[in-house]
């Protein structure tokens, strides 16, 4: 087997193992909370008999290990359980919410990743001169502001003052793609501003690091233009660190957007989670936690795999 394939398979296997471990931690964490689901449903004043009956009905009288594997088995077959607060199927509710979150994250990523890399390359090209300082200054100030401040600033100017875009990011099933895009444009802008700086700084730093190499001098002595030196000779050798930071930020776009979703009243995973934590809806919290973990681990595996594929020493062994 090609060594790269071995490495990739290893990474994926490790990722699955990690996800399995995380599921156990989530389950244990929730199980360790005082009270259980039956208690949460029936409230403080429930009789012991009623509690026992409900526990038996929900399978809560089983040992923890059995419950864990029942839960895990359910997840593998697409059954995430039933929400306590509104008795709906969690998988169905999450399906739609996850779709919305991914839609938002995907658009933010499509804009922010190329933009961040481009800005990073330009900043590296004009290292220490005004374009570099301008780019660094602007992106660093946007990352320094809390998301809700950026959110409200954007709302105030773009939605209220100039009335360019809708202030509330309302989306619903059956909406056309253009309408949908118009609806999410403000949260996308906020997310882009929030993740841009980190990726830009990393691209710039990785490029500047590579620019110290002897082969960059070779490229300069070939008569290549500075931008071509950076793009063709420096960037391919800076991919690994950049990809890692990009993936961290993509993960953040999925699991860390709670505040932005709340500001714009966007029906995504973040709001869903916040609502149900408030209601002590433990099955939902477990399910969402596991999905967020899966996103994180999945994106990190992807970063590893891309880094491996970008390394010519691994791709073309001796």
């Amino acid at each position: 087997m090609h060594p790269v394939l071995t490495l990739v398979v290893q990474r994926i296997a490790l990722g699955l193992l990690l996800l399995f471990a995380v599921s156990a931690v989530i389950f244990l964490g929730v199980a360790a909370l005082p009270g259980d689901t039956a208690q949460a449903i029936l409230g403080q004043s429930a009789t012991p008999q009623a509690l026992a009956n409900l526990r038996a009905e929900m399978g809560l009288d089983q040992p923890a290990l059995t419950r864990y594997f029942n839960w895990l088995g359910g997840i593998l077959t697409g059954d995430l359980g039933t929400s306590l607060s509104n008795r709906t199927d969690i998988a169905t509710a999450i399906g739609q919410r996850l779709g919305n979150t991914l839609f938002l994250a995907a658009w933010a990523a499509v804009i922010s990743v190329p933009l961040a890399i481009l800005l990073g390359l330009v900043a590296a090209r004009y290292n220490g001169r005004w374009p570099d300082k301008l780019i660094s200054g602007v992106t660093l100030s946007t990352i320094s502001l809390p998301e809700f401040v950026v959110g409200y600033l954007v709302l105030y100017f773009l939605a209220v003052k100039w009335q360019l875009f809708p202030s509330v990011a309302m989306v619903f099933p059956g909406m056309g793609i253009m309408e949908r895009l118009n609806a999410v444009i403000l949260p996308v802008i906020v997310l882009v501003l929030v993740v841009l700086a980190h990726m830009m700084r990393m691209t710039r730093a990785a490029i500047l690091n590579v620019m110290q190499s002897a082969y960059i001098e070779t490229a300069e002595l070939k008569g290549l233009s500075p931008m071509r030196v950076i793009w063709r000779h420096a960037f391919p050798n800076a991919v690994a660190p950049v990809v890692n930071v990009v993936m961290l930020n993509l993960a953040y776009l999925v699991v860390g957007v709670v505040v932005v979703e709340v500001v714009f009243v966007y029906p995504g995973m973040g709001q869903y989670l916040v609502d149900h934590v408030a209601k002590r809806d433990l099955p939902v919290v477990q399910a969402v936690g596991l999905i967020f973990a899966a996103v994180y681990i999945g994106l990190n595996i992807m970063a590893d795999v891309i880094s491996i594929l970008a390394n010519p020493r691994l791709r073309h062994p001796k």
Partner: protein
Amino acid sequence: MADTLLDIRNLRIEATSYPPGEPPRDVVLVEDVSVSVGKGRVLGLIGESGAGKSTIGLSSMAYGRGGVRLTGGTISLNGRDIRLANAKALRALRGREVTYVAQSAAAAFNPAIPLMDQVIETCLLHKVMGRAEAEARAVMLFGKLGLPNPESFGRRYPHQVSGGQLQRAMTAMALCPKPDLVIFDEPTTALDVTTQIEVLAAIKEAIRDTGVAALYITHDLAVVAQVADDILVLRHGKRVEYGTTAQIITAPVEPYTKALVSVRSIEHVEKADAPPVLQIESVTARYQGTPFDVLKSITLDLPAGQTLAVVGESGSGKSTLARVITGLLPPRQGQIRFAGRVLSPALAARSRDDLREVQMIYQMADTAMNPRQTVGTIIGRPLEFYFGLKGEAKRQRVQELLDQIEMGKGFIDRYPAELSGGQKQRVCIARALAAKPRLIICDEVTSALDPLVADGILKLLLALQAAEGVAYLFITHDLATVRAIADRIAVMYRGEVRRYGSKTDVLAPPYDDYTELLLSSVPEMKLGWLEGVLESRKMAAAGN
């Protein structure tokens, strides 16, 4: 001259230096250097490190490394002054009229791009020829430079080929766009001696066949004598002597040039046999997690107070042998006897006296010293550790040692950064000596030094040996050094001892094949040496 390609007049090059704790100041790197290169001629630039040879070489592309500035004089290339040309004009000539071959091809090739794309990049960039034509030319050049499978060689990545092959690929890259001038910046210095001769021959033939002019930069006069038509000797950024190769080699005028020509003239007569201080007995060793032995049943003796030179190319196992003797790498089989007693294979189990009696000096004096300690602290540490010396007694002993390495009073409170390369190595010698060892392992201690400085270190080592009776295990790839210092010689090749005995025996025929190859590959300071060796090798090959 009508056929002058490059004409440098009164060149002055400056840079800004930032000494720690002081305000930045401008330093002059090159001053008032004038030289010219005719079409198709080869000019050798020679001098020790810091002489400004690379700086002058790169100035012919109007390129200054780091903050280096070309501040005066004219650099005319093909009849126009390029010193103050704008960036666009410079990009048009770099890689087109002038190309560059770097010292370390391994670092100068981009690891992420296949070789062919890098080799033909200039051809496409400057629109010298189309892709198909450029690739055909590259394959032709690969073949001419003796690279294996020229047709498919370009598909490989830099890490997939050897250092010698990369150096040739770099030459092909420089010749591909049909430049007028190629700058060779120490192209063979990083190579093993047996590889060097092949690359040197390939470069020389390529220069002759393409009719290109060249600047050949090196610190090794014997090497440059094989390829250059004229030689410019530089020192401290100034011209020392300029003449034809024949004149510089056979009739140098300036004292500095004379010293360069006569370097490596130490006469060392081997000592009579003596009882061994170090006995290496059938030592076999391998690194953990690797499937093959790096040392295969090595048996060697080193008489007390004498020097055993271990010679070999990179990968021959000579540094591993040092690791086994010092206990850093316990052997799989065999043992080390020191002054009659068996040394414990592992470092941790050795007594303090065992540690004291075997000391080491390394190739890179720079990295072997703590940059934040003064010379006094560095040399004082073993005095304190092994002999418990403190305070004034320690300082006095440090000063004695400094006197022994001919460095005198002012150095005890200096930091390594304030010393020259040769002085740093002397401090390392003093530190080893401070432990009063019976054996010092010298691992390529002169390889990073300029020839004249290296000569001084060798003379010092010999004097110390005569005075202190210390034995040296001298690891080197340089046969001239071996001649200068050894009493006994072991030739190593791929983890085996190919030849072992007294210096006279080892360096006298009949040779085994490998020793013959090694000895005949050492450049000699005479015209036509390269052709002579290649011719006799060809004859020998035909004879077999």
